[in-house]
């Protein structure tokens, strides 16, 4: 054997060794997919969220070597906020990694609606933090959906509670007029059922006003608002619709402090384009504010400082960046919960589903994770896939968001029967036999 052949053989053996080692290493990796939108009409909102999601996972890999020694592999897929592309991304990524996708966070109610049908068959859980079908908090029927931290019905209830507090009590709602300016899509229509129920209970007049997507032109809607003169306007928009609504409110002189946006209408890109006209506008919080909590020390040290983040400086600490961090934290803590039962190895979607359903983050654990002040305790169960029904309100002063309320808890005496009824209807339609949560462990 000549020297050249010997060298080639050596190189081949070495390459094979590297491939075997890489494959073995890849076998011990947990795959998390990211459905993102960094382009298109909703990119200004999609980018900071996607960066937050990515940076938290990068931090876990850099600081801890992943979760309990299992490295996380992460891959993004661009959906452009389009349902068809979201489903395409899901199909492409669901089987990736040694155990398939741990979970999906679609960041779109439309994509969530489509994947709700597919997830049970593929055994992949959906974490829809603060969005998706409101009745999907009923885990007996929606085994694979987890609308953690809050549903739109929770949001609608808290918004009405806040209005009641401002005007002096729930009894003062009688005779008031509350308009809902909503994105004419499954997302925008979600709170209508809850607001109609509360309108009957408290006696306020409910005025739903749809805005065709994308919502850049709202003159006719705001002229209606100017004529109808509602006492409050709830805003359920996304992307350009939010900033256009705040701007038009200024144009018709509607008081901005009588507007309350849902938590997807309460970030920096929603108010900055409106300039001075945005000052005074209020929005619900998906519990967390803008700003930096303790976790930022490690983010700076392991991700932002070494230049491993894609986020621009003004994104860091913004509302949607923080939301991305929390989304990843809840997902990875669910994987950690699953590992406590099934062992420190890559988890399957089914095992992660168990982990999310048994997620129990106490105030101490949240503090330990560096998220103190961001979210309250959350305890998920078979019957409650939402885990908490807390929210707060913050207000834009023209430069930054300021938290202006204490914590509200949604009134479950109104919401629980609605959830039960709607989920039961869904189960009948889809021929699902609800689980008996008392027998789940």
């Amino acid at each position, binding site marked *: 054997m000549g020297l050249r052949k010997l060298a080639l053989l050596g190189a081949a053996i070495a390459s094979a060794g590297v491939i075997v080692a890489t494959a073995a290493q890849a076998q011990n990796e947990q795959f998390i997919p990211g459905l993102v939108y960094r382009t298109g009409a909703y990119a200004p909102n999609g980018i900071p969220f996607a960066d937050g999601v990515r940076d938290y996972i990068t931090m876990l890999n850099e600081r801890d070597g992943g979760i309990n020694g299992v490295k996380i592999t992460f891959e993004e897929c661009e959906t452009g906020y389009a349902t068809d592309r979201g489903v395409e991304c899901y199909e492409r990524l669901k089987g990736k990694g040694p155990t398939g996708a741990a979970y999906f966070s679609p960041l779109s109610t439309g994509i969530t609606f489509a994947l709700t049908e597919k997830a049970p068959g593929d055994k992949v859980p959906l974490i829809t933090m603060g969005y998706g079908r409101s009745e999907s908090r009923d885990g007996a029927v929606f085994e694979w959906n987890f609308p953690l931290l809050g549903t739109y019905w929770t949001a609608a209830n808290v918004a009405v509670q806040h209005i009641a507090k401002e005007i002096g009590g729930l009894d003062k709602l009688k005779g008031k007029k509350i308009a809902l300016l909503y994105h004419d899509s499954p997302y925008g229509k979600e709170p209508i059922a809850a607001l109609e129920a509360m309108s009957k209970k408290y006696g306020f007049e409910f005025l739903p006003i749809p805005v065709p997507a994308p919502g*850049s032109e709202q003159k006719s809607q705001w002229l209606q608002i100017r004529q109808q003169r509602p006492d409050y306007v709830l805003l359920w928009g996304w992307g350009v619709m939010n900033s256009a609504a705040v701007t038009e409110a200024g*144009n018709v*002189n509607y008081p901005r402090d009588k507007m309350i946006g849902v938590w997807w209408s309460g970030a920096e890109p929603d108010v900055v384009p409106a300039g001075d006209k945005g000052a005074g506008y209020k929005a619900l919080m998906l519990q967390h504010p803008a700003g930096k909590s303790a976790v930022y020390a490690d983010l700076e040290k392991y991700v932002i400082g070494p230049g491993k983040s894609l986020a621009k400086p003004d994104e860091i600490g913004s509302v949607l960046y923080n939301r991305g961090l929390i989304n990843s934290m809840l997902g990875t803590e669910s994987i950690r919960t699953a590992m406590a039962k099934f062992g420190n190895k890559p988890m399957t979607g089914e095992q992660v589903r168990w982990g999310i359903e048994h997620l129990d983050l106490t105030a101490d654990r949240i503090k330990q994770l560096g998220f103190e002040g961001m979210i309250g305790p959350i305890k998920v169960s078979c019957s409650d896939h939402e885990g908490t029904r807390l929210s707060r309100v913050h207000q834009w002063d023209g430069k930054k968001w300021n938290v202006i309320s204490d914590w509200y808890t949604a009134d479950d005496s109104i919401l629980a029967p609605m959830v039960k009824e709607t989920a039961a209807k869904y189960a009948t339609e889809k021929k699902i036999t609800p689980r008996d949560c008392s027998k789940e462990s």
Partner: protein
Amino acid sequence: MGFFLEVLIGGLLAGVLYSLVALGFVLIFKASGVFNFAQGAMVLTAALALVRTLDIAQKEWHWPFWLALVAGFLFAAFVMAIIAWASERLVLRKLVNQEGIILFMATIGMTFFIEGLAQTVFGADVYPLNIGLPKEPIFILESVFDGGILVNELDIWAAVIAGLLVAGLALFFQRTRIGRALRAVADDHAAAQSVGIPLNQIWFIVWLVAGLVALAAGAVWGSKLGVQFSLTLLALKALPVLILGGFTSVPGAIIGGLIIGAGEKLAEVFLGPMMGGGIEIWFAYVLALLFLLVRPQGLFGERIIERV
């Protein structure tokens, strides 16, 4: 009555804003028979180039506002010239004498390319744009109607800009040598070429003029909404305007815009509540199609008679 007038005036002014976008389509179709689907993407690109230059010149180079504004418009115009040159050299020249549908498909491809490139170069954030246009609401006829009639200053300025553009374009087409050459090319490419009109040069000029119109539209819409990706979707608002006004008429784009704007707003406000709301987008197309039943070439479009 006051509310009806308010909706009507609001609709007319909104229609002028649609016309600003529609004008760019008309110019290119008029001169080359190409329906340029990329016009919306050109509006976005022009606005992004303007706002980013303005931001950088003011915040990083500390230039005074007026100088930054001039630099912003010049740079955006330069970007539009590059797009015009690249469109002619890389796309249109290769497709000379192809069917209209082939050219149309090519512009769809250009749309995605221009959108992606613009976002990659200039970013995908929302950029507030201030070019000095007043944006405050004013109330007129307060003594006649309770609360007066609301009109936005920005919309009035948009109407003034649209008026100036139409006047300028009319002069350009009617009174200049290049304008006459453009009209000749529009009538018959081959005949124009045979009398020595340089087709490639004419196409570059018309795409450049359409790019400058896109810049005007981008500046006004960007001032209204902030510069963001959704500006590219304005093309969808311009389509019913074109169908109604005719693809080859500059005044048609304005009149079409006024009718569509007023029609869709009145429909949304007075018919919308009976139909669940959110009807204005499709109503604009219904209105345009109704006009087509009477005048298939649009209100001001040229009637094409082909011998068979």
